[in-house]
Every structure is written in structure tokens, then in C-alpha cells.
């Protein structure tokens, strides 16, 4: 392995090294603040090593490849992990009953798995990255093992993710049986667009496996229960990092295999996109639990992303990159508000918890409203520009049905976001369910401030970011 390749691998080496260091350190002495510092420091170092890494596309063994595409998505994932780590500090500090340090080991390992996914150009690294990510997520979901809901959510996710992994693997085996190679690009070249029954079934099974992990309809039923049972930082992680990494992999796989131009897959994925958008938004209408609402809203957002994904081309990939960035910032923002409001006993996930928020914490209420408006796609926010790009990509590729479905279903979504905003600005009839004087940790305040700045920056002046993304996805091909 050359020095250049080791430089390209540095983010992974730093993350895994830090996870091992924390694990060994915990055997000697437990200190929550120090553990957080190591985790945040290593995530920042990993981002720095990405920024200072090789500028040309570097293949690292046949398994991984560092190029503009993986640098962009890895950066996004690492930054999101960093925010979750910072927010977890205050959250676990308040839950004195839980041993909190191991959470950061799992978080770093999950981040390593996600980074592997964004770099994967081989079925083996794809599978390994996915399993490192899901294996850590099982434990992160069921982390509060004294709560029955958390254990239930963990079991549910484990059973469904295990089953879908098996289907995904079988699909890979079928493609391998026909082509004799596990390299994505080489396998695609051998198939050369002509798929027989065996490989058609293989690629379909791979897509089913990915669809399960992204919670695309009709495989979306697990998401709400898992988010509700999981502690808020884990739910934030599953909604942002894990989905972003898997979507990045889907984009790379599709670019190699040219899935979008294959009529049966195009039709199926388009149908899945429409069902996903409507199922997510319609099911969210009835939710008065913020975590379940965000689960359904994230399902709907994956449906929106599929529109740009199906549009393909540079514009489609740019739209996917920008929308994922906007979605991750916004979702993290909503979860950040939930995390700082969460008390010692339970998470602040009920509608009642937000009634009269503007009285107790005017600034926090404003942030909450802004983030929800961005999820709904209102102007001046990142979500608006993102949605604009999705529509542009869809129109450019003449996907009229999908564009219509996107517009109609995102109008529906306004209703449930506004319900929570209205609650936040309503007069409290009774004293609030949660203690009003939540002492906000300084770090969490800083994180929320940065998220708000990013949200407005992407919403008002997106040109610089879009140019960077265009360059990144252009190399990605």
C-alpha cells in the first residue's frame, strides 16, 4: 500500500483508532466529558484528513475508492456524526441512570461503516460497511436497555435489518454467479445492460435490501417504531447519517450499473417513489408524537430524493447531494431541539411538550419553527432550495408524474409541520409537561447556532455549495 493510499484511508484509520482507544481507556477509568472530547476530536480530525487528503481520485485496494463523490458524502456524514456526538453529551448527562460512554464507541464505529459505504466500489466493502453501520445501530437503538420500548425497537430493527441483509446478499451472489466478479463496475461491464432472469432477480434483490434500509415504501413500516423506541440521539443518527450513507451508495451503484435507464427498474423505482412520498406524508398526518412524525417525514424525504435519483445525470446527482445536505442539517436541527428539551425520564417527543415553547424558550421555539419550515420547503431555508433543485432535476428528465406527486405530497406535509409550529406558539392552558427551566449545555447551544447558520446560508446563498457539489459528483462518475 502506497503512502498516498494510506493518506486516503486516514479518516477510517482515525475513527477506528479512536474507537479502540476509548474502549481501552474505559477499562482504566470512566469519564464522560473526556470520552466526548476524544470522540468529537477524532471526528474533527477525520474531517480535516479528508480535506487535506489526496485531491485526485485514489483507488485504495479494489475495495474502496476516494474521489470527489466520497469526499463530499464522507464529509457530510462525519459532520453529522460530530453534531450527534456533541448533542449526546448533554442528553446522556441528564440520564444519570445509563452508563453513557460506550455510546460514543458505537457512534464512531457506525461513522466508520458509513464512510466505508461512501467509498465502496466493491460488493464486499459495500456489505462490510453496511453491517458495521447496522451492527452499531442495533446497540445504539437498544442502548437504554432498562426501557422496554428501546429493547423492542432494537429487536424490531435487528430482525428486519438481518432479514433484508440476507436478501441483499443473495442478490449479490446471483450477480456474482453470472459475472464472476464482485467489483461493481466490472460486473456492470460484463452485464452490459443485457440482464437475464438471474441477474434481473439479483439486482432486484439488492435494491430490495437497500430499500429496506432506506425505509422506502412498501418496506417503511419499521421506521416509526424504531425511532420512537430509540433514544433521541440514535434516532437523529439513524435518520441522517445512516440514510445519507446508504443513499450515497445507491447513487454510486446506480451510476455503475446504469439502473435508471433500465425500463423495469425505472418503472418500479418510480412507483416506489410515488408510494413512498404519499405513504410517508399521509401517515405523518395522524402523528402527535414528534419522533414518529419525523420517521414518516424522513420516509417522505427519501421518496423526494428518489425523484432526483431517477432523473440521473449530473443535475440529478447534484440535486441528490444538495438535498441530502439540506435534509441532514434540518433534521439534525429538529432533533437538536428535541434533545435539549428531553428530561431525565423521557424524551420530549409528545405534542404537549411543545405547547407554549415560545414562552419558555423564545429562541429555541424560533429555531424549531425554522427547521420545520425548512422540512416543509418554505423559502429562505435550505429545504426550499433543495426542493427547487429536485423539481428542476425532475422536470429536466421529463418525469412529470413524479414531479406532480412531489408537489402534491409536499403540500400535504405543510399541515403536520405547521401543527407543531402552532403548538410551539400557542398559549399553554396548563403548566408545561416538562420542566421549563432546562439548563441548556453550552455545547448544545453552539451546535444549534451552527445548524441555524448553515440552514440560512444554504437557503439564501447556495451558489458556492452547489458549485462544490457539482465538482464532486462530476468526478464521481
Amino acid at each position, binding site marked *: 500500500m502506497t503512502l498516498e493510499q494510506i493518506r486516503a484511508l486516514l479518516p477510517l484509520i482515525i475513527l477506528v483508532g479512536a474507537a479502540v482507544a476509548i474502549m481501552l481507556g474505559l477499562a482504566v477509568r470512566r469519564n464522560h466529558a473526556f470520552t466526548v472530547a476524544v470522540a468529537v476530536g477524532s471526528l474533527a480530525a477525520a474531517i480535516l484528513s479528508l480535506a487535506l487528503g489526496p485531491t485526485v481520485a485514489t483507488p485504495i485496494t479494489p475495495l474502496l475508492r476516494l474521489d470527489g463523490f466520497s469526499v463530499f458524502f464522507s464529509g457530510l456524514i462525519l459532520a453529522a456524526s460530530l453534531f450527534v456526538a456533541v448533542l449526546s453529551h448533554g442528553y446522556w448527562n441528564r440520564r444519570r441512570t445509563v452508563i453513557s460512554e460506550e455510546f460514543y464507541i458505537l457512534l464512531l464505529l457506525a461513522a466508520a461503516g458509513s464512510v466505508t459505504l461512501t467509498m465502496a466500489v466493491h460488493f*464486499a466493502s459495500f*456489505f462490510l460497511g453496511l453491517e458495521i453501520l447496522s451492527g452499531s445501530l442495533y446497540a445504539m437503538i*437498544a442502548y437504554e436497555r432498562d426501557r*422496554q420500548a428501546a429493547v423492542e425497537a432494537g429487536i424490531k430493527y435487528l*430482525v428486519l435489518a*438481518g432479514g433484508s441483509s440476507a436478501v441483499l446478499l443473495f442478490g*449479490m*451472489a446471483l450477480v456474482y454467479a453470472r459475472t*464472476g466478479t*464482485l467489483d461493481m463496475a466490472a460486473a456492470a461491464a460484463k452485464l452490459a445492460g443485457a440482464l437475464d432472469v438471474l441477474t434481473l432477480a439479483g439486482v432486484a434483490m439488492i435494491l430490495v435490501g437497500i430499500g429496506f434500509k432506506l425505509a422506502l415504501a412498501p418496506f417503511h413500516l419499521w421506521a416509526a417504531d424504531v425511532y420512537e423506541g430509540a433514544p433521541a440521539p440514535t434516532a437523529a443518527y439513524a435518520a441522517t447519517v445512516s440514510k445519507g450513507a446508504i443513499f450515497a451508495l445507491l447513487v454510486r451503484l446506480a451510476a455503475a450499473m446504469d439502473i435508471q435507464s433500465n425500463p423495469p427498474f425505472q418503472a418500479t423505482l418510480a412507483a416506489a417513489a410515488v408510494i413512498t412520498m404519499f405513504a410517508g406524508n399521509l401517515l405523518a398526518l395522524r402523528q402527535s408524537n414528534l419522533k414518529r412524525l419525523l420517521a414518516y417525514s424522513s420516509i417522505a424525504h427519501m421518496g423526494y430524493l428518489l425523484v432526483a435519483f431517477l432523473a440521473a445525470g449530473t443535475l440529478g446527482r447534484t440535486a441528490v447531494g444538495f438535498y441530502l445536505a439540506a435534509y441532514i442539517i434540518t433534521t439534525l436541527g429538529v432533533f437538536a431541539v428535541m434533545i435539549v428539551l428531553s428530561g431525565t425520564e423521557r424524551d420530549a417527543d409528545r405534542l404537549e411538550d411543545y405547547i407554549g415553547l415560545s414562552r419558555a424558550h423564545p429562541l429555541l421555539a424560533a429555531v424549531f419553527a425554522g427547521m420545520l419550515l425548512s422540512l416543509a420547503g418554505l423559502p429562505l431555508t435550505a429545504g426550499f432550495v433543495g426542493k427547487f433543485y429536485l423539481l428542476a432535476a425532475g422536470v429536466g428528465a421529463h418525469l412529470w408524474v413524479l414531479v406532480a406527486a412531489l408537489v402534491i405530497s409536499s403540500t400535504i406535509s405543510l399541515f403536520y409541520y405547521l401543527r407543531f409550529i402552532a403548538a410551539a406558539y400557542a398559549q399553554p392552558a396548563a403548566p408545561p409537561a416538562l420542566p421549563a427551566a432546562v439548563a441548556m449545555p453550552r455545547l448544545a447551544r453552539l451546535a444549534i447556532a451552527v445548524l441555524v447558520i448553515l440552514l440560512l446560508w444554504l437557503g439564501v446563498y447556495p451558489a458556492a455549495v452547489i458549485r462544490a457539489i457539482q465538482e464532486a459528483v462530476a468526478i464521481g462518475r
Partner: protein
Amino acid sequence: MTTVPMMHAMIVAAILLGLGLTGLLVRRNIMFTLLSIEIMLNGAGLAFIAAAAHWKQADGQVMYLFIITMAAVEVAVGLALVLQMYHHLRTLDLDAASSMKG
């Protein structure tokens, strides 16, 4: 020694996957659910082995090693969660684990 044609092994693998999937959908006991996942994973593993034998490569066998490793992880975490579930609910019936609705 006569070799087994790849297609035959693939059919066996597909049957294993189907059996596992049926078990996953039908059985309500968490232990059988975990067993069914193992059977599905082994179906996928067998398919990789068969394909590797057909192409005379080691890649498929390496994938099988990854699959057993992952299956071990799944069982380790899975059984830990089963213990916790039994602790909370005093049953291994998955239908009892449905406190979340909506």
C-alpha cells in the same frame, strides 16, 4: 469426482432463503425468528460458495467468511436483546413486544 452443477446448488440456496423467509414471517417466537435469519444468511452464503466454485475463485468464499462473521454479530446482539426482552416481558413471543402503536 463429479462436480455439482452451479444451478443445482443455487436452487438449494434459494430454497434455504425461502425457508428462512417463511419462518421469519410465520413464527412468532423470537428464537425461531433469529434462527430463520441464520438460515436465510446461510442460503446467501451457499450461493456465494457455489458461484465461487463455478468461477474457481476465492472471492465468494471470502464473502462467506464475512457472512458468518456478520451472523455471529447478529446473534450476539440478538441474544443480548432477547435476554432484555425476557427480563421486561417474561415471554419470548414477538407479538407481546408491541407497546408502540400509531
